């Protein structure tokens, strides 16, 4: 059963230095508040797993929290580069970053295998691509019925999954909707999980066949209204595309990035305070 707790407590108790960590969200419902809290608590040596690492992984990498990243597309969506990610790869700053690189189809399959308790998944993929040559977790196998050659990807089983959702009820059942990405798979593939939510309600009011994570597959549920900002929460608030554009300038230089992080993240106690500090800036 999920414990209803503060984000500070959940991060402190459930994320350990050296953990592999999947913070998922496909453009929508990105667990930004949780990312900040990890920075504030100086977690280190993390393996960051995510199909579409964006600003929060750029922040964790730039703050030196990560030793490795597992991903399939690492950019600022609709804007361009992630400069902290590039600086780590191209120049080893603030530390070298190992990478394990997939396509979206391959990585989605790897999560599905993890959630399904299978050691690998099969897909019609990666043919002609250079990725299998640089990622040993992609192989090719023969169909036992037709002899056809197909790609196989090793399962992803994170130590911890962190996602953001719209609602939880008081028993800790979680409902999300809209673009739901691989959040369900990430939570089910992980040993432990933290879900931040916009609000905690008496009754989820979930429509039939909605994406619901039952309380008993989640470790902690934390109410963090606005916790997906600058991403969005369908039905609650829109994506702040301007912030994504602004991140380009904030993150381009090491000093500018560190100053911004010191002021707005390290220098604030929680996500609400972060949001207020941004408005003042």
């Amino acid at each position, binding site marked *: 059963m999920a414990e209803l707790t503060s984000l500070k407590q959940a991060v402190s108790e459930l994320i350990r230095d050296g953990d592999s960590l999947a913070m998922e969200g496909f453009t929508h419902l990105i667990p930004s508040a949780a990312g900040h809290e990890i920075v504030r608590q100086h977690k280190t040596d993390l393996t960051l797993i995510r199909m579409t690492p964006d600003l929060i992984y750029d922040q964790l990498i730039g703050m030196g929290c990560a030793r490795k990243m597992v991903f399939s597309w690492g950019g600022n969506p609709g804007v361009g580069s*992630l400069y902290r990610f590039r600086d780590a790869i191209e120049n080893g700053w603030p530390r070298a970053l190992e990478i394990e690189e997939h396509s979206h189809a391959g990585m989605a399959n790897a999560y599905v295998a993890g959630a399904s308790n299978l050691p690998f998944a099969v897909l019609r*993929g990666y043919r002609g691509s*250079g990725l299998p040559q640089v990622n040993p977790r992609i192989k090719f196998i023969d169909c036992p019925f037709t002899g056809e050659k197909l790609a196989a990807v090793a399962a992803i089983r994170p130590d911890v999954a962190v996602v953001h959702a719209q609602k939880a009820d008081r028993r800790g059942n979680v409902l999300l909707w809209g673009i*739901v990405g691989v959040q369900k798979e990430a939570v089910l593939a992980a040993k432990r999980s933290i879900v931040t939510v916009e609000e905690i309600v008496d009754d989820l009011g979930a429509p039939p066949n909605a994406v619901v994570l039952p309380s008993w597959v989640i470790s902690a549920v934390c109410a963090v209204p606005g916790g997906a900002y600058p991403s*969005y929460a369908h039905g609650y608030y829109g994506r702040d595309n301007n912030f994504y554009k602004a991140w380009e300038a904030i993150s381009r230089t090491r000093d500018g990035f560190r100053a911004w992080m010191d002021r707005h993240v390290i220098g604030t106690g929680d996500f609400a305070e972060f949001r207020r500090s941004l408005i003042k800036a």
Partner: protein
Amino acid sequence: MAKIDYTADEMMTIAAARLLRDRQVCFVGIGLPSAAANLARLTHAPNIVLIYESGTIGTRPDVLPLSIGDGILADTADTVVSVPEMFHYWLQSGRIDIGFLGAAQVDKYGNINTTVIGDYHQPSVRLPGAGGAPEIATSSRDILIIIRHTPRAFVEKVDFITSVGLLDATTDRRALGIPGNGPAAIITDLGILKPDPKTRELVLSSLHPEVTIDQVKKATGWPLGVVADLPMTEPPNADELRVLRDLNHRSSQSNQKAVA
């Protein structure tokens, strides 16, 4: 008739949109492909089915999304599925007529690089990576690529094949068991390249108005072939331009809206 002014980017987007047909099922990349696909939908292809890898099927955004997963894509879709389902049931299943991609680098066989410039392990520039493209490039029936024409973008051989095009002179896609046909056309701000049916090399197949062959050759990193009787791309008509500009105007207004 008065001459209509337009930009090279507008010509590119309009030329790309024209290659889509009504009722096709189109798997759309974000950015230039998304602009062209929605222009097609708002002009000659009202029943085109647009699919974005974020999970939105049959979406009809009235403004262009900035990201692949903007809320407008979900709001206007026939249905929204999970990302694993998208790649299993919708892309891999072979239901896609056109995979519409952007790229950082394309080579003379239409292979796409969005991974690194330089060596993979010591890159001079680290690009965002593959995203959905490797499987879009192999599972879709045909591929369109839209990209601005520069010598950096059009190289003899890509530094890394992220998503396969037509491979090279010696190996056929079929030999690798790839179901789709691969790149049918590369639409740029200077013209349209298509693979030569014999050599598989991309050759200049249509020249946009007011562009010279020499200009295209200079912007291409290999000795570019040109088809016999090179046609000129039809310039944008007033309707295409009006719809595209309205779309771009609405989109930039919408994307600049502050969020509380």
